């Protein structure tokens, strides 16, 4: 071999772009076309306007940096045992953009928080002061999502936050802002406990069936 390979700009550009194209093809294009075929999971409802607004508050306040929305399979982790719900499937995220899968569990997974904690009062109060409900919690409190009013100034239109007695101040009442109201509506929509797929017969099932007989 007399011709020497020279790392010139041509081989560099071509090689670099081939590598990137391969990666982009496998990791972006194929998932892109695969997900085109995905249908919304059976039982999944689109967000209401209020819930979508709340989802934007969730993004603004960066909830995703501490909370995931992707329960793992029981074989891998005890997520289901913790009450976080069944393992999630692609169809569960049909209406989600941006996705909020998350990468941290400084706090618990929230994919089924509404099923686990359906109380609106709890959510409102917990956002106002998490430590009033969960001692030792390191979740930020969000006083700026609420207004504190003199109790006599509270009108019928105000949404009152019912705090535990030791956290309530005499003569003062905490009421929600539209942001807190929307955020809680979103949190209360996070219920994916429906069963997303038609039952698929797998080998294990047949065996267990015959074993049952």
């Amino acid at each position, binding site marked *: *071999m007399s*011709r*020497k*390979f*020279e*790392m*010139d*700009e041509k081989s*560099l*550009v071509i090689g*670099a*772009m081939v*590598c*990137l194209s*391969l*990666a*982009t093809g*496998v*990791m*972006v294009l194929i*998932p*892109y076309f695969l*997900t085109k075929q995905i249908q919304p999971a059976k039982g999944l409802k689109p967000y209401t306007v209020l819930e979508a607004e709340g989802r934007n508050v969730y*993004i*603004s*306040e*960066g909830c995703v*940096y*501490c909370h*995931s929305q*992707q329960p*793992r399979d029981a074989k*891998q*982790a005890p997520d289901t045992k913790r009450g976080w719900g069944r393992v*999630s*499937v*692609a169809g569960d*995220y*049909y*209406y989600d*953009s*941006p*996705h*909020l*899968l*998350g*990468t941290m*569990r*400084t*706090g*618990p997974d929230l994919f089924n928080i509404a099923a686990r904690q359906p109380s609106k009062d709890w959510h409102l109060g917990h956002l106002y002061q*998490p430590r009033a409900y969960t001692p*030792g*919690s*390191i*979740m*930020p*409190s*969000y*006083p700026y999502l609420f207004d504190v009013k003199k109790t006599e100034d509270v009108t019928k239109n105000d949404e009152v936050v019912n705090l535990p007695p030791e956290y309530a101040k005499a003569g003062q009442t905490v009421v929600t802002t539209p942001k807190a109201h929307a955020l809680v509506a979103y949190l209360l929509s996070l219920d994916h406990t429906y069963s997303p797929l038609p039952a698929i017969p797998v080998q294990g099932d047949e065996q267990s069936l015959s074993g049952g007989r």
Partner: protein
Amino acid sequence: MDFNVAILFGTYLVSIIALFLFIYSMSNGMFGDGKPASEMIFDKDEMGHTEDPAATPSQRKQLQIDAGKKLTLHQDLESDELDARAVADQSTHLVVGICLTLAVIWLILASFAGLISSIKLHEPDWLNSIPWLTFGRIRPIHLNIVAYGWCPLAGIGVSLWMLPRLLKSPLIGARWAILGGGLWSLGVFLGVIAIANGYSDGMEWAEFPWQIDILLVVGGALIGIPLWLTLLNRKVKHLYVSVWYIAAALLWFPVLFTVVNFPNLHVGIEQATVNWWFGHNVLGLFYTPIGLASIYYFVPKVLGRPIHNYNISLLGFWALAFFYSQVGGHHLIGGPVPSWFITLSITQSIMMIIPVVALVINQYWTIKGNWRALLNSPTLRFVVFGLSMYVLSSIQGSFEALRSINTITHFTHFTVAHAHLGLYGFFSMVMFGAIYYIMPRLMSWEWPYPSLIALHFWLVLIGFAIYIIWLSIGGWLQGLAMLDAARPFMDSVRLTIPYLQARTIGGALMTLGHIVFAVHFFIMAWRKGPRRLGAAVIGPELVAKYFKKGVI
């Protein structure tokens, strides 16, 4: 054939064919012996001459003695090549100065944003009434300033400084890069303001609203102009390994950044895969190549000896380009994505051991026998520390991608520690070293207070050690607690508190180190402080002066 099997089999075939092609071409000597190429960063009589502009005269003397060769002084030091280098340095003076200054400012802002985030994790009610300081905003502000402020501007500054030297030609079109750097910084500034006010695109590593991203894309493209102009008008034939890394990084980044931030294109699970394709590639195909380019230049340059085996660096480059670009899926292990996607990424994560080992072999044999240089060269101390952290974080990352280990570390602070091992321990440390080397050349002025360089090093080293060690342990225990269904979730929160406090202490020391660095940087930039030896330019005049004094 099953679709999953087809994809895996296809990738396997491509990898194997590439490997055999590579072995074939190596064994047939198609790459040449690599010797002249590795020596191209030196002038003809420069080999064996150590060089660290950041060192004090006594350090320089010791550095040269340890290298085992006396500096001989003759007219060759006035050669054309050195002149070309002086011209090259002259042409980058302004643009590099601007990039590095902006980078240092971003570094300080990023440090405080990081420190506030850290404190908030154990003092959740601290400053709770200020919306932009809530954890969920100040944390992405920290990440984005590091990822798009400090790291790229430092990296681009260092790259634009190295390029003309490596191509032995003056930088052409520096003003495009100045404009680009300005637009880029404006984009980062506006992006941070947007996040602070709750306007975020919501994806990690891609939070800036896409409208603002346009500024970064245009700015980035403008920064690329002088690179290509200079490359195409260069005076040398061969491209040194650092140039491959820099050129590839500047090619890859615009593609990555544009694809991930393209509005209204991605949705649902596919968006998650794009998110982490980008999230890991911005590390692997942008910061890492620039960091490695710096290592490949500064280590041999300071030591005055060429890279041990130039051909292995080729293997390292292509292996990095191929494997690193496909590792992103390991961020979604256990998530609702196809299993072939995850498996592919895990495999390539493990394959990353190849380029890392290539780098280790190369650098180890280059430095071997002259470890004492670390005592006398501030530049080398930072760069070699960065190099070792690259190795550590890469190997750790490969194993962290394995399902068994990932199940514990995913969703915990362990990942945060790992990220800092890479972007701080490796990249930032290498950048510190490079800046210490570059500034004296850039300003024709010596670092006024050498003791501040040492102070900076030890503050960030100790702070970083505290940060990494305690947060890794805390994260690991957190992961174990979460996997134990018998323990309530709150256990995993409570047990991390002391480790999070330790992280704050480490982070505070690092911040202090950065303040020392920034103060020193600006004293230098304004040419204040004691004039110790005068201008630190290379040139016969100065060398002769030192020589007479018996300094070198």
